[in-house]
């Protein structure tokens, strides 16, 4: 198993689902001995799109990018704390750009064996206007992908980890 999964990446986006994914990834890294990387993407592509669409003002663009940088630090530090409690070390990583593209690039660059992501939208729209960047990354990355579900069960697994 340790040879099968040497490097795990968990994608964090500030949602509860992604924190649950992080807890699961920590358990997985603990049991396999795999290296764990936590990635947060600062979605500057979406902010630029909002400026072009004139939904954002120039000062909002700057403000939201700063907010997202602060969120990245906060959530990655939180995941780091969760991991340290269980004796697992985490490589914190953040990048800027399009979520889908940045995840795929990070998986390739870091030679990730397994990408761990939170639960995807339970409601599906057949409209192209609604798309999930994480789902797009899931379909595009060259490695295997694990979608973490059941927040309560994962919490129990995480808590029981010595």
């Amino acid at each position, binding site marked *: 198993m340790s040879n099968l999964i040497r490097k795990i990446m968990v994608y964090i986006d500030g949602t509860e689902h992604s924190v649950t994914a992080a807890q699961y990834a920590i358990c997985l890294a603990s049991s396999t001995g795999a290296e764990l990387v936590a990635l947060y993407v600062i979605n500057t592509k979406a902010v630029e799109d909002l400026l072009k669409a004139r939904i954002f003002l120039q000062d909002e663009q700057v403000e939201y990018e700063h907010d997202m940088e602060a969120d990245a630090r906060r959530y990655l530090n939180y995941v780091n704390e969760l991991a340290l409690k269980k004796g697992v070390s985490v490589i914190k990583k953040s990048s800027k750009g399009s979520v889908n593209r940045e995840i795929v690039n990070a998986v390739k660059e870091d030679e990730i064996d397994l990408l761990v992501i939170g639960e995807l939208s339970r409601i599906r*729209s057949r*409209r192209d*206007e609604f798309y*999930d960047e994480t789902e797009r990354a899931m379909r595009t990355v060259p490695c295997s992908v694990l979608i973490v579900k059941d927040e309560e069960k994962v919490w129990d697994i995480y808590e029981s980890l010595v």
Partner: protein
Amino acid sequence: MTLIELVEENIIKIPLESNDKPDVLRELVQILKDAGEIEDFDATLKAVQQREDKQSTALEDGIVVPHGKTDAVTDLRLAIGIAPQGIDFDSMDGKPSTLFFLLVAPPDMSGPHVAALAEIAKLAQSKALCKALTRADNAREVVELLTGD
């Protein structure tokens, strides 16, 4: 979380009853209050008004995207209002506004907030969909149009 997960009948109002910008903002925030999505009406309204005071969030073709950050919510909150009669909202093209997407988020959820706004921006580009939404008779129809059922 995608925008579609926030779309439910109880956060949609057709038609909006207000006739001017301040009242529309209040009515949209009231939708969230009535749906049990927020507790602090005043704080939510203040966040949205502060952004609106800088520059109108009314785009072209009748679409308006009021938004703001506030500690009054713990997660993303969406309200949709439709005013087939059209309301003056200082839009870019000077035309009356008909389709309102109110989005509020807590300050520490900037990533999901930006992603949801980007989805609204993409949706606003579909003129056929926006026209169909404006012509919807009820909330159920709006949900069906957005989910593509």
